[in-house]
């Protein structure tokens, strides 16, 4: 009985904790993606381009938004395992995608709050900033245009796409 307990408890902890954490991680991830989809839908009409637009009579302002995404120890461990054979690490792709969508939505929301009519010259940047943590910063910055009077026209039909 004592031997069973001595082996059973560590084994349970060893497998139980990662399972609980990954289930929690997936739930949080799904929730975040659901919220992101709603926020994206809310800002979908806003013109955003990654090139420069020449506009007359406009005010300009530099906006930036960033988010530090923790990859999570389990997924980080998985990167090591996956590297043995190589290939895409889809679970981490998903984390970075969430981070990038988050920065994108935040910058558009910020532009709307400030009364902007368009975002031009959008740039994304990613860097490893975690130190000991498996984490990456995703930065999005752009020039916000505020036009007076008539509604904005950038002359682009294909605007306001979220990054992919």
């Amino acid at each position: 009985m004592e031997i069973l307990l001595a082996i059973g408890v560590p084994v349970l902890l060893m497998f139980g904790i990662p399972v609980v954490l990954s289930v929690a991680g997936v739930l949080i991830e799904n929730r975040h993606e659901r919220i992101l989809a709603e926020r994206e839908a809310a800002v979908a009409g806003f013109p955003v381009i990654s090139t420069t637009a020449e506009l007359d009579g406009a005010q300009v302002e530099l906006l930036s938004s960033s988010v530090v995404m923790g990859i999570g120890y389990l997924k980080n461990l998985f990167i090591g395992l996956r590297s043995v054979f190589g290939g895409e690490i889809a679970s981490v792709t998903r984390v970075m995608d969430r981070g990038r969508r988050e920065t994108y939505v935040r910058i558009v929301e910020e532009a709307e709050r400030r009364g902007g009519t368009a975002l031009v010259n959008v740039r994304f940047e990613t860097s490893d900033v975690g130190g000991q943590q498996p984490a990456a910063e995703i930065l999005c910055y752009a020039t916000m245009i505020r036009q007076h009077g008539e509604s904005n026209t950038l002359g682009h039909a294909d605007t306001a796409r979220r990054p992919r």
Partner: protein
Amino acid sequence: MIVNTESIPGHDIVETRGLVSGNTIRAKHLGRDIGAGLKNLVGGELTGYTELLNESRAEAVQRMVSDAMVMNANAIVNVRFTTSAIAGGAAELYAYGTAVVATPSA
């Protein structure tokens, strides 16, 4: 005026003053590191670090602006940001751009 485009809508760039930049290196206190460590058990946004980097970036931009003011410029164009991890837990934020004198176009 600070933009990351090469020109400013509605303005003419009459003079280029030169490259301006600002940087800062910051580390968060241990408490935040522990908080981030716990959050990373499941992954997701590490809010403490996001805040830190946003504050630091504002600081770097501020330094770049002071640099431009010394040059008597009234705008900075083509601004770029970079971030990089320096030794354990500290990050460098760097902002650079071209200081110019811009006037509203006639």
